[in-house]
């Protein structure tokens, strides 16, 4: 410090200035501190309620607890639809350092040739709030889980999560009956009870799964949890347990269903079997089947196209949506219509020259046997399946009376109690034709309907139902699939009126004629009726797919397979106390008696002659005692 500079400095003044400035600083420091305290007072005292609420909302989350879906069992308690634990891969993108690298690594280690990073990236964004896990992949296999465990340290933000997934053990033969569950889509979200479905990913799409969705789903529970900022649950503050969905015991007998499926052996067709006394559907086969498990987590485009483009239409439920001409299988019903309306008596005969002509018309309506059956009465007309007799009968009956009577048996109506998506078929009439085509009814069309052809269409379920009502001597019980819901036996509402005939013996006459179909020397089904251990009633039918021009003859060898006739057969047994009624349709198989009859016989044999034929209890014995 040189002398010259010292003289220039004025220590006294310096100290004074410094003191002033630092006093000013103290004032400013105090003012700023007061400012901070004021801010803190505002936050901690004035706004305290707001922030305490916000901090509680932060940490407390209400989580839905989805109920376990009810199981589906066959009438003997065999599991048809179950819930299997599977493993899903989820991601919390907030916890991932490098999303692209992580996803690339996943594709690499999990061996996912079909999935690209872009898809995964898209899925990682599909969620409602930050720090919520997004579903990347479902149904990981053992090897993938192992790979994930090994590489865990490289995969921050990736979690494996357990989830119950619907599984159908016998999917091929059961898919059409059970339907399947699938992911809830945008359309369904609109109509759902959002609270109850908050934690549910799957919903019944078709079949029993759809029909009994309410029962199977159950009641969602919820729990209040404290979470940290990453959404990880730290503890539970309270909970309401979910009420699991109820198990449903179906009327289906898995063994019989399986037999039906095997009998059809991949051919296009359907077999429906009903227990007449109860209306319980024992088997409801549609062939070919498909694997409903594919649909549960979302079917791949490739698989779906495969099913869609299959010419045999495996996704098509023939048993309830396939509408076929019932053909000659309706002749017993028509005979009853004739008797009830006084058109015929059991002894009325006609002479069949091999064709029928409407009065004042020249067109010939041919009997299937070109040279005719000669003189036929009602019984013989059913046994040999004479067409001419029923041309005559239907002409005299007229379409209105015919249609009215057939409606009593459920033709042209959807009569089931709980079969989702069942079609109603077509029972044509003058009125129907005007509405449908805007045309009047021609008398010749009545003749076609008279032999179960023309506009008349029915589903295999309808045919089986009508046969069951016939076996029941007119007692109506709606066909249904649920036998017991939870522990309660199903209660059926009265749906249709029982059929009362003027003379009760007519039932026996028709049933006897149907027995003769199986056992009579002329019976069309006699080859399927050999060595019967019980009394069986049956009726064959052969439905034309391809309309022949007048006088043209049907030659199977010349026609494409798809134009071959459908083979039909209805049957029930034993006649005294019917245990089963069955309808069989095999598409494009040819004549009904030789192609569908044997299948019907095997179904009846299997059911009536089964070994464990003890009566099933209607009430679960254990449960009712405990309550």
């Amino acid at each position: 410090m040189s002398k010259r500079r010292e003289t220039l400095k004025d220590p006294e003044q310096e100290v004074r200035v410094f003191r002033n400035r630092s006093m000013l600083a103290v004032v400013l420091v105090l003012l700023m501190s007061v400012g901070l305290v004021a801010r803190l007072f505002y936050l901690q005292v004035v706004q305290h309620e707001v922030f305490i609420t916000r901090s509680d909302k932060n940490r407390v989350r209400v989580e839905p607890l989805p109920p376990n879906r009810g199981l589906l069992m066959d009438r003997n308690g065999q599991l048809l639809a179950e819930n299997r634990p599977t493993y899903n891969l989820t991601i919390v993108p907030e916890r991932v350092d490098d999303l692209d690298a992580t996803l690339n690594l996943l594709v690499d280690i999990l061996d996912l040739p079909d999935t690209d990073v872009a898809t995964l990236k898209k899925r990682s964004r599909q969620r409602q709030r930050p720090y919520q896990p997004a579903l990347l992949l479902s149904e990981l296999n053992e090897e993938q889980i192992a790979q994930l465990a090994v590489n865990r340290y490289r995969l921050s933000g990736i979690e494996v999560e357990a989830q119950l997934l619907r599984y159908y053990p016998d999917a091929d033969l059961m898919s059409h009956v059970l339907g399947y569950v699938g992911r809830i889509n945008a359309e369904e979200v609109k109509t759902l009870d959002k609270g109850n479905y908050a934690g549910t990913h799957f919903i019944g799409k078709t079949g029993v799964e759809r029909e009994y969705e309410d029962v199977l789903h159950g009641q969602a529970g919820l729990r209040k949890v404290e979470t940290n900022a990453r959404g990880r649950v730290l503890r539970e503050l309270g909970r309401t347990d979910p009420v699991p969905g109820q198990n449903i015991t179906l009327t289906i007998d898995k063994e019989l269903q399986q037999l039906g499926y095997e009998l059809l052996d991949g051919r296009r067709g359907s077999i429906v079997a009903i227990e007449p006394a109860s209306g319980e559907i024992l088997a409801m086969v549609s062939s070919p089947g498909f694997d409903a498990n594919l649909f549960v987590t979302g079917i791949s485009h490739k698989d779906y196209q495969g099913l869609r483009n299959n010419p045999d239409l495996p996704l098509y439920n023939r048993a309830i949506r396939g509408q076929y001409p019932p053909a000659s299988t309706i002749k017993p019903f028509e005979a009853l219509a004739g008797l009830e309306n006084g058109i015929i008596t059991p002894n009325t005969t006609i002479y069949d020259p091999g064709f029928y002509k409407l009065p004042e018309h020249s067109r010939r309506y041919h009997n299937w046997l070109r040279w005719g059956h000669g003189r036929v009465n009602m019984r013989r007309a059913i046994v040999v399946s004479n067409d001419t007799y029923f041309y005559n009968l239907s002409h005299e009956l007229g379409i209105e009376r015919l249609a009215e009577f057939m409606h009593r048996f459920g033709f042209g109506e959807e009569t089931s109690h709980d079969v989702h998506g069942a079609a109603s078929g077509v029972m044509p009439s003058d009125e129907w034709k005007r509405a449908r085509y805007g045309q009047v009814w021609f008398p010749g069309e009545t003749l076609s309907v008279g032999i179960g052809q023309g506009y008349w269409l029915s589903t295999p379920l309808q045919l089986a139902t009508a046969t069951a009502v016939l076996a029941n001597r007119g007692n109506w019980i709606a066909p249904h699939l649920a036998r017991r819901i939870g522990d309660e036996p199903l209660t059926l509402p009265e749906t249709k009126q029982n059929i009362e005939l003027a003379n009760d013996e007519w039932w026996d006459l028709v049933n006897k004629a149907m027995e003769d179909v199986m056992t009579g020397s002329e019976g069309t089904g006699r080859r399927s009726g050999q060595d019967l251990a019980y009394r069986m009633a049956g009726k064959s039918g052969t439905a034309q797919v391809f309309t022949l021009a007048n006088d043209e003859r049907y030659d199977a060898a010349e026609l494409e397979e798809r134009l071959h006739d459908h083979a039909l057969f209805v049957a029930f047994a034993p006649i005294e106390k019917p245990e089963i009624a069955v309808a069989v349709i095999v598409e494009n198989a040819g004549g009904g008696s030789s192609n569908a009859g044997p299948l019907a016989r095997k179904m009846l044999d299997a059911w009536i002659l089964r070994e464990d034929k003890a009566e099933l209890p209607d009430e679960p014995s254990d449960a009712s005692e405990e309550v």
Partner: protein
Amino acid sequence: MALQESLLPNRGSAIKRRRSLWFRIHLDPWLLGLLFLLLLSGLLILYSASGQRLPVVTAQVTRLGVAIVTMLVLAQLSPGALYRWALPLYLAGFLMLVAVEVMGDVGMGAQRWLVIPGVVRFQPSELMKLAMPMMVAAYLHRRPLPPRIRDILVCALIIGAPIMLIARQPDLGTSLLVACAAIFVLLLAGLSWRLIAFLGALAAAALPLLWLNMHAYQRQRVLTFLNPESDPLGAGWNIIQSTTAIGSGGMQGKGWTLGTQSQLEFLPERHTDFIIAVLGEEFGLIGMVLILALYLLIVIRGLVIANSAQDTFGRLVAGSITLTFFIYVFVNIGMVSGILPVVGVPLPLVSYGGTSSVTLLAGFGILMSIQSHRRLLAR
């Protein structure tokens, strides 16, 4: 004013006897006591803020140990030695800043660290926090005060060059705080009010220019500060969660280690920059006022020391260090409570982290040196 009295430099004859002991070990008992009280409070909060992880606390204790030793060592040096060290330190710091600019290590997206492999990772900007006010004070020490225009221009050069380098790293927060430390020296030296007004106007005019030169994330911080709700899950998350933490603490707080915001990890950077929110949540307004009072006592004690310093260099350095210390406190609490934009400024001596504690306690070491070497200088 009883408080003021007791904090005033030792004048009475009764104190003279005690003075000799503290003077011999060159420490200031008031400052030392207050600092230890603050450090202990800080460790208490840190234990809770770290999620009750003792290793974090012991790690911090180790770092504070280093910092305290640094403080004690610096307190032994005479202000004269510090005065002589001002220029070499400043030059060394400046050269290291240049080195960072050329070959610095990139950490957390910014170039702030200088690494001598295997030896040390060092932030030259930390050194500048002390070297800068020392350099400016040393320069003004030999000049007549209040400073004349020529001296102010020289000071502007001394201040400006390193500030530019730090801002380029980019570390806007630190560069502003370092500039602050230097400007405090000028203000305490008696910078004329007209000049202050002029420079203030100049700074205001420069703001748009600053905005244009900001990085995107820096602009985002300012925008988020202006409206945190605009991006509640992104940039606004921090400030919403910290105000929620403080606000939900209320008057008495939720209790030590019982803050849900902090313990459940809603609060980001809860043991570093946002640690004061943990205190606010768990100890309420009472805790906040107490810790603020502790800071204020330290600041007042620092200014008392500055006023009793016997030369220009000591006065200016002590005053600047003290006021800068307060600015850290104000900026941090202001940011966490949502009245200032988010800048990466830790809460002095409470936030987890070693470097800033070393710098701060080194500063207090200088204060103690100035306080306890007075007689020797007063010849």
